[in-house]
Structure formats: C-alpha cells, structure tokens
C-alpha cells in the first residue's frame, strides 16, 4: 500500500474551487514535490492530507489516504493520531508557526506527549534529542529559548525537529524555505536530504521554486488552477517537459547558466555615491545598516546590488533616491550634489500592494509627478498617463481603476509607469520582482530591459535573487552586513568570484538539474568544511 494515495481530490471554499480533481500517489520513503505558482492550490492539497479543512467550511471531495488512514472518513481521534504521529507538517514561516510564549523544547515536548505516553521529563529529553539531531548547537540549553531568540534558519530547524519527534513516516513541507535567505535555504534543504536518507521517511514538498524541488525530490507534480499539469520523475519533467505550461514555467525561471545580453560600455557617469554610511538608532543601540559604500552608475547601464536580508541593500537604494538621508558620505547626480528627492531619480518598489494608494485610482497615482510639476490641464494629463499605461503593457482606459482590481504583476507595471511619468534618468528598482510569480517576474524584467534601451535609463537593480540580478545587470555589487564585498562586471563576479562570501552565495543557489544539484551539495559540504 502507498504511503499517500489521493484520488479525485476536490476542495472548494464557497464559490472558489482551489483543487479540482487531483490524483497522485507517494510510496514509502519516496519524495514528491508539488510545484505551482500562487493560486495553483498546492498548499490546499498539503492541508487536505492532514484533514486540516475539517470544520472550516471548506467542501472536500474524493479520497485521501495517508499512512493507512482514510482522512475523509477518520474519526477526530484517528485524525489526531495521524497528525504529527505518522505524518508531520513543516510550515512556511517558522516564526509565526511556533507559539511565541513558550520555550521551543516545551512545545516539542507537548507535541510528543500527545502521541507517546511518556512523562514530562522523558518528553523534554526527547525534545533535546531531536533538536540536537537537526543540528541545533548546545541543544539542551537552547531548548529553553523562545522562538524569537532563534534566527530564521534555526527556527525552521526547530520546526523540523518537532516534526521528527514522533518519527513520522511522512513529512509534509509547505514552502519550508521561502522565508529564508539563500544560504540558509541551502542548509535546510541539505538537512532535509540527510534526514530522509537516515530515517527513510517519505517527503511531500510544496514549493513555488522549481530549483528547490530539483534539489530535494525524486518526482515532480506541476499544478495549475487546482489541476495536475504534468507528473513524473524530476529529471524527466524538468529536463524534457512535455506540457506547454511546464515549458513556459521553466523558461521563466532565471538561471545562473542562461545566456546573457551583451554588456554595453558607456562612459558618462550619472549617479555617484562616495563613502555612503547610514546608522539607525543612537548611542549604544546604534546599528550601521550601510557602511562606507562607494558606487558609480553610468548612463544606460544596469547596476545589480545583491545581498541577503540585513545586508543593507534596501537602505542603500533608499539613500540613492533621496528618501533616506545618509549619516555620512555624499551623492552626486549628473555632477551636482544630490540631496533630498529629485524627480529625475525614481524608484520602483518591492511590494505591489503597499506601493499604490488603495484609495486613489491608478491614473491619479501615475499623474502625481505631472501634477507636482505644475501641469494643470486635465486633457494633457490624461493623454500622457494613457501613453504611459500603454507603454508598460496596460490600457489607457485603466486610468480610473483602483489598485485592487489589478494582479500583482499589473500593479508592478503601474508602479513603473508612475516612475516613468517623472521623466527620470535613473530608476532604482528595490526587489521589483520578488513578490511576483516566476512567469510574471520574467515579463516585468523584460519590460524594464526594453524601457532601458528605449529611454537610455540607468537602472539600479536591488535584489536577493542572484540569478535575476545576473540576467539584468551589466555590473554587480555584492553586499554583506552593510559593506560591498565585491564589485565588478557580471561576467567576472559570477564566473570567478574573488570573495568567499560571493562563492558561498553562488553555491547556495538551487540548480534545476538534479545531477547539478547533487554536485552543488558536495561543493557546499566542501565550503562548509573549509
């Protein structure tokens, strides 16, 4: 009998059909990834495996069998024995997935005691044992810490430890590394790999990231609109996809080995930063977010700024456009000192939700720079906004619509149109595509490239995704803890990185090819030893 056997699964929330007739199996000890973009229903499937939709008003049809339990027909008691006992789940955001008020060891012990009849003391000992197993140093002492005292990666390890406590036969991981930095992501994926080898448990991985799937599983099931698009061994599906959607998805994934546009070699400097420094807070609690950063941006080129969370890349971006005052250092724009905001230096923001005022029509938002410049004639404003909307791939008639009527990618296009309305020479893009699905990401990146060529814009592209940065940039600066550790032409930095941190970052990027993934895993082990 299979470990997981799902037949004709259908989940509806009111009028919305999240999963629409899905069937698949997972054998004991095997690993399957459900891959799909947002709205594909993949997380809903994960919840359905543990019967988590019970009592929420969702309608679930079809049969779901997990580790010998018919989830649809099981009693509450049987379900509770299945959950955590035979099938355990790891969630996306490790901070919010743990109770902030109790020590991590106590939370694991509590879960363990639900399934094993042991004393409090024995349960606590078991908690320390599993925390040690997932690589938490000094586990006995750290088990008394509360979640906020752990780093993101440690928290995810702790959550995996909780899953391991009862030695489940199936581990369900719902976007387990999405909230993590790329180097930490690699560590967690390696941990999952090792644990699977050692315990022989099955793995069901839910992810939007094809690379993460390629690193971790044997089989892939691509989902879209609640249905299975393609299902098969990972090498087959990712190497030789048969379905158009899978091909489109794979084509959109930025790769470290994809061909790149030829770099231009412009001369004229538009924006120059010298010794930029920014501190937050005062006195003993002062934190230096950006430390002694000097950069040059030339006409028509794209400078990539790449770094993990906390590297200071967003702070740097905000200083470049004048939204933040530098604590020290200076900025010049076209040879003149650049302080405060200047309409010629614009920004495209990360979050397509918060970057548009929900109470104003998108046309009004785009018209802001025009009106601020003193344009009063409504006809001219409408005409210009219409042009801009069309230029970014929307319609002039969208002027009167509100942000919530648009999808994430469309909202990002509106943001770009607003930046263009000011006739800028420089646009700083702060993680412009990280909140978007991968196919949408590709479209937005293409649009930025087109605009740059057409208008001769200089772009600063701030992102955490090394592959995207490689694809769009001419030169790249790698940031770590507020400093630029390496800067140079993209070809040089990516092909022969000089700084060890850059090497570590590049080794951590998931590869689409399972064999390459295995090679990288070995590389990472070497780097870790070295």
């Amino acid at each position, binding site marked *: 009998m299979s470990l997981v056997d799902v037949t004709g699964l259908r989940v509806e929330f009111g009028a919305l059909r999240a999963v629409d007739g899905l069937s698949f199996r997972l054998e004991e000890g095997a690993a399957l990834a459900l891959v799909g973009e947002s709205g594909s229903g993949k997380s809903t499937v994960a919840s359905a495996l*543990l019967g*988590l939709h019970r009592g929420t008003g969702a309608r679930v049809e079809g049969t779901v069998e997990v580790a010998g339990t018919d989830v649809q027909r099981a009693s509450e008691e049987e*379900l*509770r*024995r*299945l*959950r*955590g*006992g035979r099938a*355990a*789940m790891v*969630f996306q*955001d490790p901070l*919010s*997935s*743990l*109770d*902030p*008020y*109790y020590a991590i060891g106590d939370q694991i012990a*509590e*879960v363990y005691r*639900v*399934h094993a009849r042991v004393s409090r003391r024995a349960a606590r000992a078991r908690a320390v044992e599993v925390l040690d197993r997932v690589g938490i140093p000094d586990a006995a002492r750290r088990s008394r810490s*509360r979640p*906020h005292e752990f780093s993101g990666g440690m928290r995810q390890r702790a*959550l995996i430890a*909780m899953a391991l406590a009862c030695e489940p036969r199936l581990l369900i991981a719902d976007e387990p590394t999405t909230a993590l930095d790329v180097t930490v992501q690699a560590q967690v994926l390696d941990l999952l790999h090792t644990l699977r080898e050692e315990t022989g448990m099955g793995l069901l991985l839910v992810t939007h990231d094809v690379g993460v799937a390629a690193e971790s599983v044997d089989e892939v099931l691509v989902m879209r609109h609640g249905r299975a698009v393609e299902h098969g061994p990972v090498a087959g599906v990712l190497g030789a996809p048969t379905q158009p959607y899978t091909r489109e998805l794979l084509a959109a994934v930025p790769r470290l080995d994809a061909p790149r546009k030829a770099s231009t070699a412009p001369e004229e400097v538009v924006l120059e930063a010298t010794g930029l420094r920014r501190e937050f807070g005062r006195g003993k609690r002062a934190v230096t977010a950006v430390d002694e950063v000097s950069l040059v941006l030339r006409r028509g080129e794209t400078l990539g700024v790449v770094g993990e969370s906390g590297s200071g890349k967003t702070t740097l971006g905000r200083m470049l456009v004048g939204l933040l005052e530098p604590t020290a250092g200076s900025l010049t724009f076209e040879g003149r000192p650049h302080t405060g905001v200047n309409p010629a230096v614009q920004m495209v923001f990360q979050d397509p939700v918060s970057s548009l005022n929900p109470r104003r029509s998108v046309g009004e938002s785009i018209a802001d720079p025009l009106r601020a410049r003193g344009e009063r004639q409504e006809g001219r404003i409408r005409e210009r906004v219409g042009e801009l909307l069309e230029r970014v791939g929307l319609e002039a008639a969208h002027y009167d619509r509100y942000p919530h009527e648009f999808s994430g990618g469309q909202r990002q296009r509106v943001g770009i149109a607003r930046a263009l309305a000011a006739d800028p020479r420089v646009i700083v893009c702060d993680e412009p595509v990280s909140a978007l699905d991968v196919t949408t990401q590709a479209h937005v990146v293409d649009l930025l490239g087109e605009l740059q060529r057409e208008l001769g814009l200089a772009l600063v592209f701030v992102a955490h995704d090394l592959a995207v940065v490689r694809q769009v940039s001419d030169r790249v600066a790698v940031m770590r803890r507020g400093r630029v550790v390496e800067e140079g032409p993209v070809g040089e930095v990516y092909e022969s990185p000089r700084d060890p941190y850059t090497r570590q970052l590049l080794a951590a990027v998931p590869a689409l090819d399972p064999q390459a993934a295995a090679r990288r895993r070995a590389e990472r082990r070497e780097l870790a030893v070295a």
Partner: protein
Amino acid sequence: MNGLTGFVLRRAVGAAVTLFAISVIVYVVFYATPGNVAQITCGPRCSPEQVHQVARQLNLDDPLFVRYGHFLQGLVAGQDYSTGTSVQHCSAPCLGLSYQSDQQVTQLILAKLPVSLSLVGGAMVIWLILGVGTGVLSAWRRGRISERVLTGITLAGTATPVFVIGLVLMIVVCGELQLLPFPQYVALGDDPEQWAWNLVLPWLSLALIEAASFARLTRASMLETLAEDHIRTFRAYGVGERSIVGRHALRGAFAPVIALNATNVGSAIGGAVLTETLFGLPGIGQELVHAVNVVDLPVVVGMVLVIGFFVVFANAVADVLYAVADRRVVLT
C-alpha cells in the same frame, strides 16, 4: 534579567515624570484664577474687602509658581500653616489644608482611603474572575448558542452605566426582595463578615460593567490568537482543542488583560465615586464630590493627585508585568 531590571528602572522614572507633569498641570489649572478662588471660598455674599482678605490669608497673591514651589516643598518636607489663631504642622507628604475645615488633606484622604480600597480591590477580584471566565467560556464555545447568549449579556453589560446598575440592584435586592440591608460601611478591622456583606452590592455594581469589558477583551484576544499560524501548527500535530484553547489561546490573552486592567483603574475609580455616592459609602469619592460642591480646592487637588498616583502606579506595574510575560517587549 539585567534587561528587565533596567526596564523596571526606566519605567519607574517615566512614572515619576508623568506624576510630576500631572501635578503641574493640575495645580496650574486649578489655581490659575486667583480672584475667583478667593471669591468662591469666601462665598457669594462677601464684600470685595473680605474677598481680598481671604486671598491674602490663603497666600493667593503670590505668583503661581511660588505657590507651586510651596506646595512641592510641603509634599517633600512638610510645612507649617497658620490657621488664624494657632500654627499647625503638616508633615510630609503634605497636600495642604482644607479651606473649609482646616484639616490636613493628607489625613483626610488617609481616613477615607480604606473604604475606597475595599471597594475597588474587592470589585477588581470579581471583575477579573467573572470577566476573564466569561471570555474564556465564550471563546471555548465559539459558534454555539451559548456563545451568542454570553456575548449578548456582556454587550448589555457594557452599555449600562454604573449608577443605573447600582440603582436597580439596590432597589431590587434591598428594597423589593429585602435580601440585604441597605449598605452601610463597616471597617474590615471591626467586623470582617459585616464588612463583606455590606460591600456585596457596591462590589457587584462596580464589577459587573468592568467584567463585561474584560469578557469582550478576553474573548477577542483569544479568538485572535486562535486565528494565528502557530495554532494551526498545534492542530496539525494532533494537539487537542482543550489544550489549544486552555494553554495557547489563553496565554495570548494574558498581556492584553493586564493592560486593560491598568487602564481600567482610572475608570474604575470614576465608577467608585458613583458607587460611593449612590450607596452612601464614606470613601474618597464621596469626599471628592463634597469638596467639589463646596469648592475646597486643596482637597480637590490633593484627591486628584492621589488618584492620579494610583493610576500611574497601576500602569507602571502593568507594563512591568507585561514585560515579564513577554520578554520581547524589553528587547525593543
């Protein structure tokens, strides 16, 4: 622990500064109209000469900040007052002498304080038990008829003014049913049993309304916690509903309940004034109403400051408890 000690110290300093600011504001607001004070103190039929004499007697001709200085000095070091014929020493903390009776305000307040403390303290026990209990019960029974009934009752509770509940309770229990005599304050030291019986109705009238807001808050914060991601984790690991509600959700309600209890000390003292007036209990509330009616400014100012002290103190204690309950507060 070190961070916590620092936090407590910082909070204590903050509370002291707040109290000082309150004393300045209150003093300025109440004494900023000198001629008026003398007129009111003397009475409406006084001649201008008499009013002037009263003003001199009360040192009302001095500049305001000088008088505030005297007031602060009295508070810290005590002060001597001449009351026409004799000199009275008022030891620290001295809040001045009553215009009406020449009694020391501090002693006046001390004499009335036990009554008010009995009232508010007892009521607090009731509202915490009743309010939090009801809140937990309705979060536990969420989605069922019993929850709706409880919600309705607590809503009606929040909408009823203290004196209306008090009036109704007094008329029904003491008047119509004659279950209890009309309350008369008996000191705790004299007869604990009588003390409690006589305070049952005042306690209830004060506590029922506060209990209603605690029930609403407890229920709301428990439901909020129940919607959080970590609850989903424990469900996904087979932890039972009893433990989820009783352990994890209730823990989430702890901090907001403490915070509300602190902010409610102010409104509870306001309620105590009404309750004392209604039931004729000789507490500081009743004394304050009396002082207000005869415009006895030193008594009014002294009472406001003492009550302000309790409110600020309660808030500081709540903040510290909050920090102990949730260490992340200290870190930020």
